[in-house]
C-alpha cells in the first residue's frame, strides 16, 4: 500500500493528536487563559427534597473579593420559566428554584475574584429548608406517596412528549410499551421459563478532564467556550434560556479529555450563560472532581424479566419490566427508556414480546446519557436469562444463542429489520478467540475456571442531522468544518480519512475545525455512536461535491467532457492531459492561497414507534451488533474474579481506521470490566457516599484481563460512508453479562445484581452449599 493510501479509508494512520494528548500539550477548555473574569463556585443543597424558605447570603457577600451571590430566585425573576431547561423535560433550573430535589443540587452561585475566594464564600451561605418527604429509590417512587415534581413539563425538543404536559401526581415521566404477539400467554403456555430480578447500579463516567465553561457577553451576544459534546444543542438551549436569536449565541469547544456522555446537554452551560448575561461579565464555571460526580450519572436500572422456550427449545416469549432511575431531573432519560426498552428482549427471534419500560424520578443526582445509552442495563438482563435458559435446557450457551440470533433481514421484536448487524459473526469471533471449543482446565481446588459469552444490540440515535463544509485550499490542503467534537474517539482523524479518500489526497493535509457555532455547521450531537455514519456521510458527500468541482474545472481546462477526467493523488487526469490540484486552483482564481468551498448535509429518518405497540418498521437508521467472550478464574475462597481472556467483537460495517476501532472496542471493554466487577455509585438516604476518586473504583492497570482481544467484524452498511458505522458503544454492551455467565459456568451461581463483588460471589457460593 502506498503511504498516502494508509491515510485513506481502511488505513490505520495514527490519530493526529496523539502526541499532544499524551504529553499534555493540547489546551483543553480549563487550560485557557480567562483574563479578567468572575470565578464561580456553587453552594449545594444538603437536603434530598425540601422547600427553600430562605437563602442567607449576606455573610458571603461581605467577604473581600466576592462580586456577588446569585440564587435561583434571582435568576427566576429575570428569566421566568425559561430558567428550566432539559432535552426531554424542561424541569431543571440552573440554580434550585423554590425546591431542592437532590443532595448536592446547586442552590446559589458565588461570583468572586478568584476560585478559592468563591469556594470559601459558598461555606458562608446557609439555607432554611422545610423538609419534604424524600423519594430515595425506585420503590419509593413507584409507591407514589411523594412526588419529586408537582407536574410534568415536557420540553419543546421532542414533539412526541407533548401529551405528558401538566400530568400530576406521578414520578413516572415516561413509559414505553412493546407489545408483539401475546407474550404473557406464550409464557404461561411455554415449556421452560427462566425469570430474574436484575439490578445495574448507577455509575459515573469519570472522564479525565473536568467540565469547565467560560461565558461572556460581546457586542450584545452571549459567547461561551465549553466542554460539551453537544455544541449545537447548547446553542439552542442558551438561545431559549436568554430569549435570544440563535445568531446572538456562540458556543465554541476545545478537544475534550474524555466524556462518555458526561458532557452533554445541560451541564454547566445554562448557569454560566445566565450568570454572564445577568451580571454582564465574563464568568468561569468549573467543577471539582467531587462536584463532577453530582453533575450526571448513568441510570441505575431494575429489570424484572422472563424468557420462555417451547418444548423444542424455540424462544416463544420475552417479558420485561424495566425501571430506569433518572434521579431528580429527566435529562434524556425518557429517550433512554424507549430506545433501550425496545431492545430488552435482546437480538433474538422471539415471536412474542412484552416490555414495559419506565423512566422514574427520585431524589438523587440526575442520570443522563452514558456510553451505551441504557442498553447495557437491559443487556445485563437478557444475556443472563438466555444463558440460564440454555443451562436449564442442557444446551451449550453459545450454540443456543447462535440458533436464535437475528440474521440479515430478520425482523426484531420491535418490528424493524436487521441489516449490517452480524451478531453471529461477532459471537463466533469471540467464542473462537477465548477457546470456547477447546477443553478447559476448570480446576479442582479453590480456583475454578469458566467461560461466558454475551451478545448486545443497540440502535443508533435516529433521526439526526449532520452538515459539513469543505474548503479546498489552493495548495491542495483542505479545511473541514464540522461540529463533531473529538473527545478522544478520533473523529477528527477519521473524518479527514473519509474526505481524503474521496479526494485522493493525503488526509494529513486536512485540518478539521473544532466546533464553533459561529463557523461550523449544525450537527445534532456527538453521541450515540452516530458520528461515523451521519457526519461521515456528510463528509463523504461534501468531498464528493469537491471532487466534482475539481473535475469540472479540469474538464474545462483540458477541453474534454467531465466523464473523461479522473482524480488521482497527483491531480486530475484525462488521457495525456494532467494538472496538479495546486495548478488547477491557482489557474482558476489567478491567486495563491484561494479556496474552493462545498457544503453537504446528511439526515437520517425513522418511523416513530406506535404508542400502543411500541413497534416501528424503521425505528433506527442502523444497528450496532457486538459480542463479548470471557474466560475467567474465580477464587472460591475470597470470591475474587480474575479475567484471563476477554474478547470483544463489534460489527462496524467497515472500519475507516482499524486501529482506532480496536481502541474503541478495548476502551469500552475496560470500562465494562469496572461495571461488571466494582464500579458503582453508593447512595445512602440520598447522600452520595463514595463520590471521590479515593472511594469510587475504576479499573486500574492491574484489573485488566491477562489477554484482551478486540475483533473488528465488517458487514458493510448499504448507506454508510464506505459501508461504515460507529463503534463507540458496541464494546461495552455485553461485558458484564459475559463475565457473570463465565462465573456461572465456573462455580454454578447466577448473580443478578451488579457489580459482581468478591463479597457477592462469596455469599452466593455459601448459599449454594
Amino acid at each position, binding site marked *: 500500500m502506498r503511504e498516502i493510501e494508509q491515510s485513506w479509508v481502511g488505513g490505520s494512520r495514527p490519530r493526529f493528536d496523539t502526541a499532544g494528548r499524551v504529553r499534555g500539550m493540547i489546551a483543553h477548555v480549563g487550560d485557557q487563559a480567562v483574563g479578567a473574569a468572575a470565578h464561580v463556585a456553587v453552594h449545594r443543597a444538603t437536603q434530598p427534597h425540601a422547600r427553600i424558605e430562605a437563602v442567607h447570603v449576606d455573610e458571603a457577600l461581605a467577604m473581600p473579593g466576592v462580586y456577588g451571590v446569585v440564587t435561583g430566585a434571582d435568576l427566576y425573576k429575570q428569566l421566568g420559566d425559561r430558567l428550566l431547561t432539559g432535552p426531554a423535560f424542561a424541569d431543571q433550573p440552573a440554580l434550585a428554584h423554590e425546591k431542592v430535589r437532590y443532595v448536592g443540587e446547586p442552590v446559589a452561585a458565588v461570583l468572586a475574584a478568584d476560585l*478559592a*475566594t468563591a469556594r*470559601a464564600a459558598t*461555606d458562608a451561605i446557609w439555607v432554611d429548608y422545610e423538609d419534604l418527604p424524600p423519594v430515595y429509590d425506585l420503590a419509593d417512587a413507584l409507591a407514589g406517596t411523594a412526588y419529586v415534581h408537582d407536574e410534568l413539563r415536557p420540553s419543546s425538543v421532542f414533539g412526541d412528549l407533548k401529551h405528558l404536559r401538566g400530568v400530576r401526581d406521578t414520578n413516572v415521566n415516561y413509559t414505553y410499551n412493546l407489545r408483539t404477539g401475546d407474550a404473557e400467554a406464550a409464557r404461561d403456555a411455554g415449556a421452560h421459563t427462566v425469570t430474574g430480578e436484575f439490578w445495574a447500579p448507577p455509575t459515573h463516567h469519570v472522564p479525565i478532564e473536568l467540565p469547565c465553561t467560560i461565558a461572556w457577553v460581546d457586542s450584545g451576544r452571549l459567547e461561551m467556550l465549553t466542554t460539551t459534546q453537544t455544541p449545537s444543542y447548547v446553542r439552542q438551549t442558551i438561545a431559549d434560556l436568554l430569549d435570544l436569536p440563535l445568531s446572538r449565541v456562540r458556543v465554541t469547544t476545545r478537544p475534550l479529555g474524555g466524556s462518555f456522555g458526561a458532557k452533554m446537554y445541560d451541564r454547566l452551560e445554562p448557569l454560566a450563560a445566565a450568570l454572564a448575561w445577568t451580571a454582564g461579565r465574563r464568568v468561569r464555571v468549573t467543577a471539582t472532581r467531587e462536584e463532577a460526580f453530582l453533575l450526571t450519572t448513568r441510570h441505575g436500572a431494575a429489570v424484572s424479566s422472563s424468557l420462555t422456550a417451547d418444548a423444542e427449545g424455540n424462544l416463544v416469549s420475552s417479558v420485561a419490566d424495566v425501571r430506569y432511575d433518572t434521579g431528580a431531573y429527566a435529562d434524556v432519560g425518557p429517550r433512554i427508556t424507549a430506545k433501550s426498552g425496545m431492545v430488552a428482549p435482546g437480538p433474538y427471534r422471539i415471536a412474542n414480546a412484552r416490555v414495559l419500560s419506565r423512566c422514574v424520578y427520585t431524589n438523587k443526582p440526575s442520570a443522563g446519557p452514558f456510553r451505551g445509552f441504557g442498553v447495557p442495563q437491559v443487556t445485563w438482563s437478557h444475556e443472563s436469562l438466555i444463558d440460564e435458559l440454555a443451562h436449564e435446557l442442557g444446551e451449550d450457551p453459545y450454540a443456543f444463542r447462535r440458533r436464535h440470533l437475528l440474521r440479515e433481514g430478520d425482523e426484531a421484536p420491535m418490528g424493524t429489520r436487521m441489516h449490517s448487524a452480524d451478531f453471529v459473526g461477532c459471537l463466533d469471533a469471540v467464542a473462537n478467540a477465548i477457546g470456547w471449543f477447546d477443553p478447559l482446565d476448570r480446576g479442582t481446588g479453590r480456583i475454578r475456571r469458566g467461560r461466558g459469552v454475551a451478545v448486545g444490540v443497540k440502535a443508533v440515535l435516529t433521526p439526526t442531522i449532520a452538515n459539513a463544509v469543505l474548503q479546498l485550499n489552493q495548495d491542495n490542503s483542505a479545511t473541514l468544518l464540522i461540529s463533531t467534537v473529538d473527545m478522544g474517539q478520533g473523529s477528527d482523524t477519521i473524518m479527514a480519512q473519509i474526505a481524503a479518500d474521496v479526494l485522493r489526497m493525503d488526509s494529513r493535509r486536512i485540518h478539521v475545525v473544532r466546533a464553533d457555532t459561529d463557523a461550523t455547521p449544525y450537527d445534532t450531537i456527538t453521541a450515540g455512536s452516530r458520528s461515523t455514519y451521519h457526519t461521515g456521510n456528510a463528509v463523504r458527500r461534501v468531498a464528493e461535491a469537491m471532487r466534482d468541482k475539481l473535475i469540472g474545472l479540469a474538464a474545462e481546462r483540458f477541453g474534454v467532457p467531465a466523464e473523461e477526467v479522473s482524480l488521482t493523488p497527483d491531480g486530475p487526469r484525462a488521457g495525456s492531459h494532467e494538472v496538479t490540484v495546486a495548478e488547477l486552483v491557482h489557474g482558476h482564481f489567478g491567486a495563491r492561497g484561494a479556496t474552493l468551498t462545498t457544503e453537504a448535509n446528511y439526515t437520517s429518518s425513522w418511523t416513530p414507534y406506535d404508542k400502543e405497540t411500541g413497534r416501528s418498521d424503521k425505528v433506527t437508521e442502523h444497528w450496532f451488533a457486538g459480542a463479548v467472550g470471557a474466560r475467567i478464574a474465580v477464587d472460591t475462597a*475470597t470470591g475474587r474474579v480474575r479475567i484471563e481472556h476477554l474478547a470483544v467483537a463489534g460489527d462496524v460495517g467497515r472500519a475507516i481506521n482499524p486501529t482506532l476501532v480496536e481502541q474503541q472496542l478495548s476502551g469500552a471493554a475496560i470500562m465494562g470490566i469496572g461495571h461488571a466487577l466494582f464500579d458503582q455509585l453508593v447512595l445512602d438516604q440520598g447522600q452520595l457516599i463514595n463520590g471521590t476518586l479515593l*472511594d469510587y*473504583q*475504576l479499573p*486500574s492497570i492491574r484489573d485488566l484481563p491477562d489477554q484482551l482481544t478486540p475483533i473488528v467484524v465488517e458487514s458493510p452498511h448499504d448507506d454508510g460512508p464506505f459501508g461504515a458505522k460507529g463503534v463507540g458503544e458496541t464494546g461495552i454492551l455485553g461485558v458484564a453479562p459475559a463475565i457473570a455467565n463465565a462465573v456461572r459456568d465456573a462455580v454454578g451461581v447466577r448473580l443478578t445484581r451488579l457489580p459482581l463483588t468478591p463479597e457477592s460471589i462469596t*455469599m452466593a457460593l455459601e448459599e449454594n452449599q
Partner: protein
Amino acid sequence: MVVSMDFLRPASLAEALELKAANPDAVPIAGGTDVMVELNFDKRRPAALLDLGRVPELATWRAENGRVRLGATVPYTRIVDELGDVLPGLAMAARTVGSPQIRNRAGVGGNLGSASPAGDAHPPLLATGADVEVASTRGTRTVPIGEFFLGPKRSALAADELVTAVLVPVAAGPQQFAKVGTRNAMVIAVCSFGLALDTTRRTVGTGIGSAGPVPLRAAAAEDFAAEVLPWDEPAANTLTDDTAKEFGELVAAAARPIDDVRGSAAYRRHALAVLARRTLRWAWQDVSGR
C-alpha cells in the same frame, strides 16, 4: 473564609521537634497520602503543616542489634527495593500501598501518624512486634506497636511528639502479607493480614488491618499456631487442613469489623479467615523449603 496556613519547613530533626513543641496543632506531613486527602476534602484546616520532607535523620534506615531502625519518611519504594530480605512482610505490604507515585513519597511514619485501621504497614509491624520510636524536645521513647493504636485515627503520640522511626526485628523466619481490596491496585484494604513466623523461637506473629477500630493482633491464633505447628518436621505436608482452618477461624474471631462502603463485617471476617489460612500455608511452605 480563606484561611492562611503556616507551612513549617525544618531542616533537621532538632528543629522539627522544636517547631512541633511550639506548634502542637501543626500537622506533620511527609508524603501527604492521608493529610492531603483530608485537606483537599476540607475535612480539617490545621493552623500549620510541618513538612518533614527535608529532615535527613528521618529518611534513612540502618541495622542495629538484630533490628532495622527504619526512619519515618523512608519511602515505600526504598523499603521494597532495599529491605525485602530483612523485612519481607513489610516489603510485601509496601508493594500494595497506592500507586508507584504514592510509594515514591509515602512512608511508614505517615501510616503510624494517621493511625488508620486501614494502614497497610500496620499488620506486618504488629506481626513482627515492632517498636515505634517517638521523640519530642522532652526526649525519645519507644512504644510497643501493640500499645500504639488507641482508637480509630488515635495513637499514643503526644501533641508535641513526632514518629521518628520504627524498630522492626529482622525476619527470623518466613513472613507473609495479604490484602483484599475492591480492585487490584490503588485501593484501601477491605481487610488485610500480616503473618510472621519465628522459626528459632518458634513463635507466630499476626496483624489484622481494616477489620476493627484499630489494627489488631490475633493473640489466640498466635498461641494456637505456635503450639500446634510441627516445628520439628517442617515439610509442606505437615501443616494439616485442620490446623490451617482453625488458625483462620481464630484470626477471624479476633477481628472487630464493621459494615461500610467497601464491605460488610461478615465478609471481612470470612476473607480474614481465608487470608490467614492461606498465608500460613505459604509461610509454612517457605519453612519447609529452607
